[in-house]
């Protein structure tokens, strides 16, 4: 009948969460960009057999920007990739992307929701400054509510501090 059990604990409890290490962190090659096949079948195939967005040798196959804790700065490591996507959008006016900002689980859910928005907005700004059109980009936040990696450890957290670039139709 009652699924909630109230347990009285007198005195100050040191309620330490156990820090389990979880090896089952998702591989970055799966996840947000798993919506299309490795052969790029969802999009037109070029002469190489790969669509440029899916060619593993193309920078456009990289779709995620990762962040430091509580930061929305796009590190220099990711700028060439973001700019490459912006140039692709510039050259393909019909292409559209959704930028999904995500955060790790630590801290306030509402602040993380706003932080995820800032991350997505930050990527959008770089893209529009690099030739993409405003109308091609929608920046949204999932906050900490849709983690890609589970677990309370830095490996999972760094995996979840992320903006994903998703092309519509993939």
């Amino acid at each position, binding site marked *: 009948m009652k699924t*909630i059990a*109230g*347990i009285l604990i007198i005195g*100050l409890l040191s309620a330490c969460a156990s820090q389990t290490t979880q090896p089952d962190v998702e591989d970055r090659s799966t996840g947000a960009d798993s919506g299309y096949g490795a052969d790029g079948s969802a999009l037109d195939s070029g002469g190489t057999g790969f669509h440029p967005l899916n060619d593993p040798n193309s920078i456009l196959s990289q779709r995620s920007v990762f962040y430091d804790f509580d930061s929305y700065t796009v590190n220099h490591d990711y700028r060439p990739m973001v700019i490459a996507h912006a140039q692709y959008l510039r050259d393909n006016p019909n292409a559209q992307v959704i930028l999904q900002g995500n955060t790790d689980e*630590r801290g306030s859910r509402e*602040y993380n*929701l*706003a932080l995820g928005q800032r991350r997505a907005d930050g990527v959008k700004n770089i893209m529009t400054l690099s030739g993409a059109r405003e109308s091609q980009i929608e920046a949204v936040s999932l906050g900490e509510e849709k983690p890609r990696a589970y677990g309370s450890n830095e490996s999972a957290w760094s995996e979840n501090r992320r903006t994903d670039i998703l092309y519509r139709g993939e």
Partner: protein
Amino acid sequence: MSTHSRTQFYCLLTVLLWLVCTPLHARLNIEIFGGGTERIPIAIVPFADENRLQQRVTDVVAADLQRSGLFRLIDPTGLSPYAPAEVVYSDWTNRGASALVIGRTILMPGGQVEIQFRLMDVAKQAQLTGLATVVPITQLRAAAHRIADIIYEALTGEVGVFSTRIAYVLKQGNKYALQIADSDGYNEHSIIEYTEPIISPTWSPDGSQIAYVSFENKKPVVYVQTIATRQRKAVANFAGSNSAPAWSPDGKTLAVVLSLHGGSQIYLINADGSGLRRLTRSSGIDTEPNFSPDGRHIIFTSDRGGSPQIYRIPVSATESTTAERLTFEGNYNVSPDFSHDGKSFAFIHRHQGRFTVAVQDIATRQVQILTNSQFDESPSFAPNGRMILHATEIGGRGILSAVSRDGQTRQHLSVQTGDIREPAWGPLLKQK
């Protein structure tokens, strides 16, 4: 002594209230404040014939009082007075009890129970307060919470909150439920369930509605739902993200956070979704608004200074108004919640890598850290300011915890399977 009257109303019915010689805020000869380390020794004698009921009233009363951290239960074994004439006060003095609760239950026709209870001052050998009430047999827990509130108020001079309710989000697998329960976690039930996240529930000041954020439309939208009818309305569903609802004390206005005009900024909107106007104007994140009890100010989280800190702004702010920064210790202070008297606020403070519950006094800016947890979130003051309910994590699972304002007492609420988070303590409701 008591008048028996049948009632068909599905509510508590007070038949007779007798107070003898003492005002409502009568105190025993004990001082419990000043650290909260001294607890009132109280003996609660099982009421006559309550073993015949499906729920022993005194079990609930005792659990409530013990959970508050202000009482020490004295074992009544071997003594069973039910009326004042049957009390041998020296027995209770010998056991160290300062207060004594006695009473009886009487099964009545039509599924009703009459409960009579008296609170006795052992030193004065006199009754402090008492109550006789007739309730449906399904409402025994509610009646017991009310008795606990009466005892608490008589002995501490503070309002009891055992009859209040809490709201929280339960996550089981990929399902999310917004649930309501009594303050002790019983009588829980879902008011809405989804396969997409629900966050930030908050009670309307009259306790009839809850505002919350749902991701059911693939983005955050603010809804207001009436609890009794389950009717709901999207009150903030603008382009971009809509989140962090907070009620004004008069229930007429909601503060919400929108990314409508870029960034995350605080707006005010009428509770019916009309009359949107912008409150904050920063280039950073402004979120987690919370009204002061007098309705004149909003405290909120902002990273306008480079790290998330708590700020205060008048509700009447214009474009030229500057928000006042309130927190200065550390570089991560979020999720502010005003106390009932507006003199302090609870918040989450990152300290040595831990996210802990802290309280700051508005006037002196003195900060007290109350917990030593790893991942505390969402502090919510009890409506009497005595406890702070918050989310935390133990063994990788989300649970609720309540810590006393002085940090001395804690209590945990957990579920068998699943995580609970995003707690909100409901308001005090006026007795009908």
